[in-house]
Every structure is written in C-alpha cells, then in structure tokens.
C-alpha cells in the first residue's frame, strides 16, 4: 500500500481531483485556464524541487520564502540602479544560492537542527528585506518598461507562459540530478542514515551545504519570476510559501524522515495544491471554507501515504 502510493498514489489523487473539479465547473479544462494553472503552480513547484532535496536528507528549509523576497528585492534594486535586467536576475539568483549556502554552513558545521536554523534565518532574511526595501515595494519605470525584464514572468512562447518552460527545464535538471547522478544517490544515503553515509565516504558536510544552496537558488529563481510577473519586488513576497512547498513534497510521497521519495511525486504534489487553489476559486468557495477544504484534502492525500510502519 505504502509502496503503491509512493509510485502511483499522488498521481491518482491528482487525477481524481482534476475530474472532480472539471465535472463541477467545465471552465477548468479550458486551455487558457490550464495555462494559468501551470503558471500559478510554477513558483511553488520550483521551491518544492529544492525542498525535495532538503527533505530527502531529513532536513527542512523554512527560509525559502524569505530568500525569495530578499533575492527578488536585491535584483529589483540592481535594476533600478541601472543594471541590465537579465544580469540583475543572475545576480539575484546567485545571491539566493549564497543565502542557501549560509543555511547549509550553519547546519553542517554548526551541527544545529535545520528546522531551527532556517527558522532563525527566515527571520533574518525577512528583516533584511524590510531594511533593504524600507517596507515599500520596489518598482519603477526601468522595470515597467523593460521587455526583457517582463518576459520572464509575463511572456508567452507558443501560447505557453515562459515561466512554465523554466519550471519544466528545472524539473528535468532536478530529476536527473536526483535520480541519475551520484549526487542524488548520496542525498538519499545521507537521509537514510547519516552515520552510515559518512562512514561510506560521503562528504556529508559538503553535501548538506550544496543541497541548501540548491534550495536557496531555486527559491531565488522563483523570486525572479515573481518580481518580473508583478513588475515589482514586494517586501512580504513569499510569506508562508515554505509551507506550500513542504506540503507539495510530502503530498508527493516523500518522507519527512528522509531517504525516501521521488522528484516526480513532488511535481505532482505541487500540481495537486495548484489544482486545489485554482479549483476552489473557480467553484467560488468562500475563503473561510477554502482553508477547511484545503486542510482536509491534504489530510486525505497524506493518510493514503502512511509511513512504513514499525512492525
């Protein structure tokens, strides 16, 4: 059962949800809406891809939402200062990777629990964003008028939002990295039994740092997309996104205890959450009830994925 769910369960849950929503409102299957859906999913999916690596090592990263905001604000600031947008985005993404590496360093060398380290840096990075933006959104004609700036988050290619391509490419890369390389194998080993992995010659510290760097980088990519999409960097962007990303990973069948899970599951998990949000909007469910529905759907999906039990 557990084995089955890990392979097919999340997909089944997604299909059931899609059928349900499209029966209740046929507008759901509209190509336009599906494009919107994919676009809406992409930010959470990108963050979740990084979160997947972290969770596979039995870690967690609560700071991704703050990294998203800080790197977004950073890139926007650069643009206002006259840097070409694409270069500014690159700088923003690198800054995100550095923030992630900082988490990784504290966790690997400080030997502190990832939960509390990233809880603390979540606060630090958010505070830094407020200081940087002075609490106001960063925007300006340099952002509003630059085509290359806007294309990332607002452009379409063959009728598909550009950010969807970004998601697909990064999914493919994350998939290969996790399932086809020794890096991925070591990630699983680290999460399965840190001591055994260490004794088997895995450089566990370096691996941890790299993994949090990836998580930071992907959060920053999401930050660039959001900044471009809104043509402004919001100081409170990404608040609470860490929870959606974690939910996507877990809904996809990855164990929070580490060592078990597939990248495909995480993509499906992100889609489940996206369909849920999109569907509830389409069905006009009142915002009070939306939270209840969302919680219940997560519960149902996750109860199917019972943890491999003790006996």
């Amino acid at each position: 059962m557990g084995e089955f769910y890990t392979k097919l369960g999340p997909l089944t849950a997604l299909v059931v949800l899609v059928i349900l929503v499209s029966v209740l409102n046929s507008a759901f299957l509209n190509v336009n809406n599906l494009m919107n859906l994919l676009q809406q999913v992409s930010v959470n999916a990108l963050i979740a891809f990084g979160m997947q690596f972290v969770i596979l090592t039995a870690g967690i990263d609560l700071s991704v939402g703050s990294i998203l905001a800080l790197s977004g604000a950073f890139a926007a600031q650069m643009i206002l200062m006259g840097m070409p947008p694409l270069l500014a985005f690159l700088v923003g993404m690198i800054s995100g990777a550095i923030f992630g590496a900082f988490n990784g360093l504290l966790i690997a060398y400080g030997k502190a629990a990832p939960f509390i380290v990233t809880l603390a840096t979540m606060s630090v990075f958010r505070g830094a964003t407020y200081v940087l933006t002075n609490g106001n959104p960063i925007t300006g004609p340099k952002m509003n008028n630059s085509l290359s700036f806007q294309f990332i988050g607002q452009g379409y290619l063959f009728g598909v939002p550009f950010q969807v391509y970004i998601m697909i490419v990064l999914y493919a890369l994350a998939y290969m990295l996790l399932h086809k390389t020794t890096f991925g194998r070591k990630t699983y080993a680290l999460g399965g039994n840190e001591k055994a992995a260490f004794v088997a010659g895995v450089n566990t510290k370096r691996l941890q740092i790299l993994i949090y760097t990836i998580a930071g980088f992907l959060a920053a990519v999401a930050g660039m997309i959001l900044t471009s999409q809104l043509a402004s960097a919001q100081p409170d962007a990404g608040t609470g996104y860490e929870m959606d990303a974690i939910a996507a990973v877990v809904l996809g069948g990855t164990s929070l205890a580490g060592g078990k899970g597939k990248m495909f599951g995480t993509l499906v998990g992100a889609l489940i959450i996206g369909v849920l949000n999109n569907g509830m909007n389409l069905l006009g469910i009142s915002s009070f009830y939306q939270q209840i529905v969302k919680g219940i759907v997560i519960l149902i999906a996750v109860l199917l994925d019972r943890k491999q039990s003790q006996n």
Partner: protein
Amino acid sequence: ASVGNNKSDSKVTKKAAKNVKIGVSLSTLSNPFFVNVKKGIDAEAKKNDSKVETFDAQNDSSKQNNQVQDLITKKVDVIIINPVDSDAIVPAVKKANQAGIPVIACDRGSNGGKVMTTVASDNVKAGKMAAQFLEDQLGSNAKVAELEGTPGADAAVQRGKGFNNEIKGNLDLVTKQSANFDRAKGLNTMQNILQAHSDIKGVFAQNDEMALGAVKAIKDQDIKIVSIDGTPDGMAAVKSGQIDAIVAQQPKTEGKLAVEAAYKYYQGKKVDKTIASPIHLVKADDTK
C-alpha cells in the same frame, strides 16, 4: 473594571513639542499604507525635534498589548495606537489610562478605555465610495467580483461591509475571493475568477496591492477596477490608466494629524474627539 485615576485635560503639564516623547504602536509594517502612516508621524515629529519610538505589532493583538505595556514602561508622553483590532486593544488602552499616558487612536478606534482622540479615515465609507464608482461606471445589475483581504482582518471587514451594503440591489456580485491583501495572490486569484466568470464588468479590490496583481490578470479586457488605499504604486497605476479609480486615503496625513493632536494636547488646547483624515476618489480621467 475601573479606568483608574487618569489626569483630566485641564491639569495637563504643558510641554514644548521637542520634549514630547511619542510612542507609536502600528498594526503592521508589512503593508505600505502603514509604512506611510509611520512616515507621516516621523516627518512631523522630526520637524518639531521630538523623539519617536515605533513598534510593529505584526497584526497580532496580543503582541500589540505587550508593546503598549513596554511603551508605558518607557514612560513616553503620548501613545499613538493604530489598533490591530478595536476590541482587543481596550485592555491596553486602559493600562495606558492607568499610567496617565494619553492615547491617540489612529486609523482604527478603540471600543473602550479613554482615548484622547481618534484620527481615522473611514474604511466603511471608502468601501461605499468604491461601490458607488462601479455603479456610476457600469450601470445597474452589472456583474462584478470582489477581491477580499486577509480573512478577519479589520480593514477587510470594514471595507467589505461598506462595499457590500452599497451594492445590494444595484450590482450583481458574482463572486468574492480572498487574496490576502497580496499582489501575487491578487494575480492568481483574478486569473481564476476570470476563468469562472468571463462576463464580469468590474472588480473591487480591497487594497491597492491586490488591484495591482489583478491588473496583470485582466490585461486589456474591458473591466473596470477600483481599489482602496492610494499607495505610490497604486497612484502610479491610476495615472497610467491600469487601475480605473482608487479611493485614496492619506496615510501620511493621518500620521501627521495624530502627532499634531499630541502637541495640541500638551499646549493645553482642546482636542476634538475625532479627527477625520480625508479620503477622496481618484479617477484615471482626473489624472490626465
């Protein structure tokens, strides 16, 4: 419960503006509106050389109570409170009363305790004005949608109340969905609403941020959009015609008025019980 031995207005020991130590507790600083209230306060205080101490309650009533306590401990001369919630602030106001520190409520009132004055722009009225704008533009029974703020937040409740009361029988509200006062959520939610209701003619967003997101979803469709606040980003969008109208509140003025009231009090002058901060409708056409 008793309110304690607060000083009566007649016995105020007069103080020069530069000696008035001002404590401020704002409901949140992650919303540009209140950042601008703060700017208004700071600017006015700076002009008069008085000291300001500002705390951010992060939309948490309990945190705000703690912060007011801490301001009392610091013996400030006046506390400007922008309550997270008008009921929940009452015990804090009473504590200040007991300590003999005058309280100025800002943007939202306090439903108890003794407040020197309340400086506010009326959120219910703002909602009503937004509704009237859509009625003017669209005529009766046009289909409209509402983007709500964070469920339960005071501004969301008040603005929604004003809007919904006004449109009853005049406009056809086909759906209302929360986008948490957030620009990114405003975009996504608006996209989804448009899928389900492609025939809407107007949108009311409870704040500028959500409207700015919704604008991205609406693109060039002929849908009238109105919001409340008047943040710099919002005003720029009105200017460029992306947002059709904003019920502009003037946060900086609000902050300024609150500080002025404090000075007046310490000059021994009488302060009105309520001070209205102006609100007015800014339309895209006006700015051209």
